C-alpha cells in the first residue's frame, strides 16, 4: 500500500511516498491509523490528521484497498 504524506506528516515519516505493507486486501481507516501511530508515534503529537482515499476525505469507517490512493492530511493551513 502506498501512502502520500504532506506537510508535517512528511517530516515525521521522512518521505513523501511511503510503502506501507499490510496483510489484508482491505483495511478500515481507523485500523490504518492505528498501524501508522505504532510505526510513527510522533504522529500522535499532532492535534489531528485526516486520511484521504482517492482524493476524498475518509471517515474512520471507510474501507481502503491496496490499490487506492491514500494520503495523510495534517491540519490544513491554506489561504
Amino acid at each position, binding site marked *: 500500500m502506498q501512502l502520500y504524506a504532506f506537510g508535517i506528516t512528511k517530516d515525521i515519516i521522512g518521505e513523501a511516498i511511503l510503502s506501507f505493507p499490510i496483510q489484508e486486501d482491505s483495511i478500515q481507516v481507523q485500523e490504518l491509523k492505528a498501524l501508522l501511530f505504532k510505526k510513527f508515534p510522533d504522529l500522535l503529537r*499532532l492535534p489531528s490528521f485526516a486520511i484521504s482515499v482517492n482524493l*476524498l476525505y475518509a471517515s474512520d469507517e471507510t474501507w481502503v484497498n491496496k490499490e487506492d490512493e491514500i494520503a495523510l492530511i495534517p491540519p490544513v493551513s*491554506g489561504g
Partner: protein
Amino acid sequence: MKTHIAITSEAINIYNEHLKLVNPRSGAICVFIGTVRDFNREKEVNELYFEAYEKMALLTMEALAHEAKGTWPLHNIVMVHAIGFRKITDPVVFIGTSSAHRDAAFQASRFLIDQLKETVPIWKKETYQNDSAWISTHP
C-alpha cells in the same frame, strides 16, 4: 458561467485573474486576496512556503465552486492558490466572484475563502530568522 480554478507556482497576476471575472451581465465583482504578512504569533516572518496535494486541492476547490453556484446567482468564479515560496506582501490566494448584484458576490466570496481555509489540502510553512514551522490552522 465561467469557473477558473488553479494552483500555481508562478506569481499570481491580480489583473489577469480579475479579467476572468468580467461579465457583461455582472454589476458586481468581488475579489478577496490573501497576502503574506510579516508577523504571526509574535514572531517575525521571513517568508512562507506553500505545499499542496494538488489533485485533491483542485477537486476540493471545484466542489466548493459548484456549491457556491448552487447557492448564489453567480456569473463567474475564480479561485487561484499559490504554492512554493512567497515573500512578505505577496498574494497567495485570489478568490473572485461576479454576479448581477453585490449581495451574492460578497456572500459567495466569503463562503469560498472560509471553506478553502478549512478544507482544501494546502499547507503553509512559516520561515523565521532561526527556524521554521508548519502551521496547523484547521481543524
